[in-house]
């Protein structure tokens, strides 16, 4: 009976189904208001008390448990079986790429009966969804987590770092990390700091449309990521997704310079304050950047997997109550990332609280909530004052990467001067000395 209890039905509907000894998947005959319906019992989806059945036509309908309803079980359900397609032969001349899954839309499969989305990313699942992969690489898969990306924590970054490091020590041409898109850019920044001196590419990839849809972007994103990971001349952390809303170009962003910028579009990830590394079009990798570390299998990886979770992000807004900052300090935070306005400002109302934080040994850094552009705190008095208190400007780093870096820095050292120095040092391309004119590309690019 366990399945019925967990099927989402409550109250009257649950009672009636129990009385009729029905379970999810059983075939029912339901009479109500003088009409008779036959179909398979489907788990309850959404609010509401109706009993949902899938009729022979394939349609689901909901029937309210009214007084005159009659439910009769007329057949036992059969569990849906998924027959995986046979694995294609591995072509040993192709590069060896490991695909790791952490969860998210890209690593999910739908149960066509109920519509429930389940995570799945075995090798056979992958080849099933994207048979073309066998022509690009010898693929090996590993499920690291099955998490929606909002549930990923700095602790998971540490684990992921170690798993990746192990694989690299064993020798691979590249790694692809399937990840939920919501916090994928945080993870790409984290890995950029925790995996230094990489010999090969580590490429994060996600999807904005689940892979049960024929229109899913999962396959094209994955193909682009594997192609790039397997053969690009690049070494380091990148993030591969659609370049536009079209399916013909996958763009690879630098791990520390990428941000999710749209709630739903396929091309949600944009390079901020920098240009993308490369794109993959018509199965051809083209490097766009020229300032990157070359792939070198003999390079020795440096693993620095620790992150501190004693870091807070405070977004400045008109009317920000300074006691918010006090609260963090009193609760033992070691670092505060201020998301300032414009060139790098917060109201003078917060000055005392900020001074107090710094006096208590908290590292206070500042990035701009404008996202685009560089912080410059020498232009106005407010900026100069903040600098004089010891606030550290994060130049052209946008707040999310700044936050991750602060977490990583405080995971390396608890000593204030060392932390400040490390924070100011360019580790993984998070700082760039020049701010270039970066035109938004035409938003809708069609054709070839």
């Amino acid at each position, binding site marked *: 009976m366990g399945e019925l209890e967990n099927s989402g039905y409550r109250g009257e509907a649950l009672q009636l189904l129990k009385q009729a000894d029905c379970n999810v998947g059983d075939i029912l005959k339901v009479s*109500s*208001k*003088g*009409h008779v*319906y036959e179909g398979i019992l*489907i788990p309850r*989806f*959404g*609010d*509401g008390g*109706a009993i*949902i059945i899938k*009729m022979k*036509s*394939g*349609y*689901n*309908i*909901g*029937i*309210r448990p009214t007084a005159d309803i009659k439910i009769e079980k007329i057949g036992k359900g059969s569990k849906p079986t*998924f027959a995986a*397609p046979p694995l294609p032969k591995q072509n040993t001349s192709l590069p060896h790429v490991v695909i790791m899954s952490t969860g998210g839309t890209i690593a999910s*499969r*739908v149960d*066509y*009966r*109920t*519509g*429930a*989305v389940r995570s799945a990313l075995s090798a056979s699942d992958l080849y*099933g*969804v994207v*048979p073309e992969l066998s022509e690009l690489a010898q693929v090996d898969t590993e499920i690291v987590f099955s998490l929606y990306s909002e549930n990923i924590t700095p602790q998971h970054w540490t684990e992921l770092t170690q798993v990746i490091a192990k694989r690299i020590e064993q020798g691979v041409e590249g790694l692809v990390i399937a990840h939920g898109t919501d916090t994928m850019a945080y993870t790409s920044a984290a890995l950029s700091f925790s995996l230094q001196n990489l010999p090969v590419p580590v490429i994060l990839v996600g999807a904005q*449309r689940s*892979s*049960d*849809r*024929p*229109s*899913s972007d999962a*396959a*094209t994103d994955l193909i682009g990521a594997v192609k790039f990971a397997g053969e690009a001349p690049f070494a380091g952390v990148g993030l591969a997704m659609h370049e*536009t*809303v*079209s*399916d*013909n170009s996958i763009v690879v962003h630098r791990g520390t310079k990428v941000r999710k910028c749209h*709630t*739903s*579009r*396929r091309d949600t990830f944009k390079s901020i304050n920098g240009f993308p590394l490369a794109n993959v079009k018509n199965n051809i990798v083209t490097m766009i950047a020229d300032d990157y570390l070359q792939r070198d299998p003999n390079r020795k990886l440096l693993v620095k997997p620790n992150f501190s979770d004693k870091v807070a992000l405070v977004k400045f807004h008109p009317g920000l109550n300074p006691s918010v900052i006090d609260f963090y300090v009193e609760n033992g935070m070691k670092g505060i990332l201020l998301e300032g306005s414009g060139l790098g400002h917060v109201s003078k109302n917060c000055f005392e609280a900020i001074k107090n934080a710094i006096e208590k040994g908290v590292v206070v850094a500042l990035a701009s909530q404008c996202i685009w552009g560089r912080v410059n705190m020498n232009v106005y008095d407010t900026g100069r004052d903040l600098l004089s208190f010891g606030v550290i400007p994060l130049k052209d780093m946008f707040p999310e990467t700044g936050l991750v870096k602060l977490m990583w820095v405080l995971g390396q050292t608890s000593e204030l001067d060392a932390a400040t120095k490390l924070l100011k040092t360019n580790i993984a391309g998070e700082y760039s000395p020049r701010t270039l004119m970066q035109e938004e590309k035409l938003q*809708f*690019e*069609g*054709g*070839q």
Partner: protein
Amino acid sequence: MIIDYAKVGLKVGLEIHQQLNVNSKLFCSCPPELFKEEPEITFLRRLRPTQSELGQIDPAAFFEFQKGVKILYEANQRSSCLVEMDEEPPHPINIDAVEVVLTASLMMNMQPVDEVHVMRKTVIDGSNTTGFQRTTIIALDGWINVKDKKIPIQAASLEEDAARKTGTQDEGKTIRYRIDRLGIPLIEVATAPVIYSPKEAQEVAFAIGRILRDTGKVMRGLGTIRQDLNVSIPDGALIEIKGVQALDLISTVVEYEVQRQLGLLAVKEELAKRGVTAEKITSDFTDVTSIFKETKSKVIRKAIDKKQKALAVKLPGFAGLLGRELMPNFRVGSELSDRAKFWGRVGGIFHTDEMPNYGITAEEVNALRDAVGAGDGDSVVFVADTEENALDALKAVVERSQEACVGVPAETRTAKDDGTTRYMRPRPGAARMYPETDIPPYEITEESIAKVQANLPEPADKKLVRLIGQYGLNDKLAKQLIDSEYNQLFEEVVKNTGVVASTVAAFLTETIKAIKRDGVETENIQHNQIYDIFKAVGSGSLTKEAIIDVFIWLSKNEAKTVQDAVEALDLKLFSESDLALIIDEILHENKLQIEKMGKNAFGMLMGVVMKKVRGKANPELVSKLIHERIT
């Protein structure tokens, strides 16, 4: 051909689709509008069959995917947002649209479902950016009476309309679709397959169409209504015919389809008699490009100039059969050609049953026959295109020819304007449907049903009696009005313009029908334009005689007003003083006659004046002015 349909065992089921006239699309707030201009936005996609259900994948779609077919979508900002582009999840279902379907359902004695669940029906030909069509059942299990026969209505659904195909490019490898139509709410009404003659199919479709119209909330005009017909005969096959746009074409479509199936069964018998079996038709293709080196055939010349190939295949024992007519202008050869076009992306095929012709000489035909080893009893089919396309085309020809030995292949066909049908695609497998989890279920409460029930439009039979009583219409006119799409407009016009009911009724039925027969595109005229015409007549600024001219002018001049028509046609009424001057002049010219005839000259004078001022003066006023002057 006279066919005894009962004897043949014809069974027809109908699916009537009609766009709903509500303010926005089904799952977003875009207006339900199409655009004609160049697209502002284009984007390229590929749809991939999802492997987990490989056994159920639509073979045509899988084939297109393997061929690398891409879809280029066209959009503009006015008619589409990110939802249609599959770049944003759908918004909750449009409640107004649900209510229209509820209204129609209750008029068809159906039981609404308690809770509406939106489903995804997999469609990967590109007509839906998502790769599925969103569809939902609103009510089940009803009936309507048609000519005293109870016709069961199985289901009333609400679904999103698909994108419309606007062309292909890159040798058929890229299909263009325009997404303006995508998401427009459609009602689908499905009958049980209990219709036994072409005429009855048309009557049932007509009855359902009238009910939908009576809701007052469906779109009108070309392309807003599409009937799908499921036609079967016992020895033939179940054929799904898509997209019959005109109601009065339905009986013809069914007739032709029965003819086609009977014709194919006769071909099967003839092939059996000749000893031809499917096994004897093989995919042995011969490269015959060299035979056409010096050809005068333009089509083949063009292909050879582009360094493409001519390939040929022998169809043993088919001589004379390919020219056999199955429907008007549609032969057995057309069956092969349709398949070749679909699977091979070619413009068409040639076959020896129609040779020598099209610039192809008898010598070339002989060389062709020799090349494939064809005897007198055999036919040769050949095609000139890229090697890949030509191969795919001939494979399709062979497959279709093999099927001819077995009978009628089950397939989906599309209806042409003349009532004939063309191959569209193979029948999709069992439709794969799974829940659209992005849209919450929508409950239909007893209260909302009661509210719709209380406001149901008047049933047609009651309305007929009322129209006769209330407006003094005769029986025939009232019936015509009920059957027309104008019966609501009629009452509005009569109530608000003061024009005599019988004049309005006659125009909205007989006159419009007559000018439509004469080729005027009456569907271009909006109801509010007709209303404005009568408003002008009622207020005395337009004469009754000018109604037809204004109507015809408006049908040819899109997005213009009655005022524009009056100016363009120079129908502005003469003022009374201008009219008086004209009449005075005519009286002067006819002075002698008037002196001779006295008052009796009136009829003659009326004729002369009206000839001069017709459409620009009210006859009553002319009559008054003449009377004043000759007494």
